C-alpha cells in the first residue's frame, strides 16, 4: 500500500449520479462517512445502494458528482488506486483466493500494507483473532463455510490497514446467530482499528445494532439520513419498506 502520510477523516460523496442508459440508478446522492463511525446504507431492492457502493469503490464510473477522501478528489480513480489510498471494500461473494490458505489470504492484505515475512504473518494472525477465525488459519480458504469465508474476506481487508472499510452485505446468507456475531465483530474492528465503516446491508438487525448513522435510499435517491432511532420512526422509510408497494 502507498504511504499515506495523514489519515483522511472523511469519505464523502457530493451529488453522485450513476445512470445506466437513461436509468437513474443513483441520482444525486451526498453522504459522508467519518472515521471511527459505522455508517449504514440501506434501501429496498433496486434502491441503488449497491451501485453507489460500486461507484465509491471505483468499480462503476460516475455520471456526475464527486467522491472525496479527505480533501482529495478520488472520482474516476481505479479500484486499485482507491484501495491503495485506504478505502478498502469487501465483496458479497467474498472474492477470497480459494486455493490459498486462510492465513495466506490475510497475509496478502498485510503485504499490501507493507508487512512482509514474519511481521506480516504475526499481523495477519492478530487480524484472524480479531475476526475469531484464527483456528482456521491453515485451512484452504475454498473449504471453509460461507460465514467464515466472509470473515476471511473482511480479515484480508482489515489486514491492509484501511482508513475506510466498505462492506457489501456481509451478513447475506448467514443465519441469525452468525449475523449477530458478525455485527459484534464489525464493531470490534472499528473500535480496534479506528477506521470508518460503510456498511451496505439488507439485514436490519445488523444495521440498527451497530450503525451510528444510517442513510436510506429508494429509487436512486436519498429518502432519509439519521440515527437508528430517527430512521426507525421516519415516515418516508416506513413508506418505502412497508408502504404501497408492499402488501
Amino acid at each position, binding site marked *: *500500500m502507498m504511504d499515506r502520510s495523514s489519515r483522511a477523516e472523511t469519505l464523502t460523496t457530493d451529488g453522485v449520479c450513476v445512470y445506466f442508459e437513461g436509468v437513474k440508478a443513483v441520482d444525486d446522492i451526498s453522504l459522508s462517512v467519518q472515521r471511527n463511525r459505522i455508517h449504514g446504507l440501506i434501501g429496498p431492492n433496486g434502491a441503488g445502494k449497491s451501485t453507489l457502493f460500486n461507484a465509491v469503490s471505483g468499480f462503476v464510473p460516475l455520471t456526475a458528482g464527486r467522491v472525496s477522501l479527505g480533501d482529495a478528489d478520488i472520482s474516476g480513480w481505479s*479500484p*486499485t488506486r482507491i*484501495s*491503495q489510498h485506504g478505502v478498502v471494500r469487501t465483496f458479497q461473494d467474498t*472474492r477470497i*483466493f*480459494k*486455493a*490459498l490458505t486462510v492465513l*495466506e489470504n490475510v*497475509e*496478502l*492484505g498485510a*503485504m*499490501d500494507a507493507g508487512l*512482509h*515475512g514474519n511481521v*506480516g504473518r504475526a499481523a495477519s494472525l492478530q487480524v484472524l483473532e480479531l475476526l475469531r477465525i484464527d483456528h482456521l488459519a491453515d485451512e484452504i480458504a*475454498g473449504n471453509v463455510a460461507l460465514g467464515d469465508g466472509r470473515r476471511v474476506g473482511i480479515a*484480508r481487508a482489515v489486514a*491492509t490497514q484501511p482508513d475506510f472499510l466498505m462492506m457489501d452485505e456481509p451478513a447475506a446468507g448467514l443465519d441469525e446467530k452468525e449475523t449477530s456475531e458478525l455485527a459484534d465483530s464489525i464493531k470490534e474492528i472499528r473500535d480496534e482499528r479506528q477506521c470508518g465503516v460503510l456498511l451496505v446491508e439488507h439485514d436490519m438487525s445488523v444495521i440498527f445494532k451497530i450503525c451510528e448513522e444510517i442513510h436510506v435510499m429508494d429509487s436512486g435517491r436519498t429518502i432519509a439520513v439519521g440515527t437508528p432511532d430517527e430512521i426507525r420512526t421516519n415516515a418516508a422509510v416506513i413508506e418505502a419498506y412497508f408502504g404501497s408497494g408492499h402488501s
Partner: protein
Amino acid sequence: MYLQYIIDSIGTGSLYALMTLGLALVFSVMGLMNFAYGQLVMIGGFAMILLRSQPWWVLILGTVVAVVIVSLLMERLAFRPVRTATAMTMLITSFALAQLLQQAARVAFGANPRPLEQFSELSVQYTVGDLYISRMTLITVTTTLVSVVVLALLLKRTNIGVQLRASTEDVEMSKLVGIRSNRVIASAFVISGVLAAIVAMLFFSTRTNVSWSSGESIVLIAFVGAVIGGLGSMVGAALGGFLMGFTYTMLNALLPVELRVFADAILYTLVIVVLLIRPAGIIAAKGVRV
C-alpha cells in the same frame, strides 16, 4: 530386467516432468501457452557449447543466466504488450517468437547441428546387483526432485509465491490487494527460465550436438505433458510430463524391435485415450483460463 527398464524410464520421466513444469508455471500465471519455451532450452544448449571449456560451475551458472535473460526479454518485449489481448493473440505471439528465436539461432550457429563435446564424467555406470544405473540418471532424478521441492517451497512459503498463486486464481482481485502483476509475471518467467536451463543441461549432457531445431520436440513433450496432467495444475503438469517420459522409454524397451518405430504413435494414442476419459487432464485445476 524390467526393473532396469523402470529405472531408465524414471530418468526420462523426471526430465520430461521438469520440461513440463516450466511451461505449466507460466500458463497458470498468465494463461499463456508459451510455445517459445522449447527455444529457451535450445538457447541453453548453445550456451553450453560456448561455455564447454569453462569450469563446470561457470558452465552451469552461465547457462542459467543466459536462459533467464532471454526468458525475461521474451516477457518484456513480446508478451507484456499483448498481455491483455486474447489467448489466441498470445498463442500466436509465442509461435512467432519461437520461429524468430529458431531462425536467429540458425543464423548465429549455422544450419547444421553443432557438436557438443561429451561430458565423460557423467557417463559412469554404477552396478547394483545386476542393475546398471548411470550417473546421469541419478543426477537427473535428484535434480528433478530438488527442483520440484524448491519450486513447491517457493510457491508455498515465500511472499512472491503466495502472490503468484493469488494472481493465478484471480488477477483482478490480486491487483486490488496491491499485487503488482508485472513483478509476479516476470518472476514466473525467471523461474520458467531457470527450469528451462536445468532441462537444457540435463538433456544436452546426454546428446552429442545442439541444433537450432532442438527445442521443437521438447516444447511438444512439455505441452502434451501439461495437457494430460491438467492445465494450470503444477502437480498435474509434473505428473503428466513424468508419465510421458516414463511411458515413452518403457515402450521403446518393451516393444519388439520391428514395432519400435510405432512408439511415438502408441504414446500419442494413449494421450488421446487419457484425454477422452479425462478431458480436463489427470488433475484438473480449478479456474483454468484458456
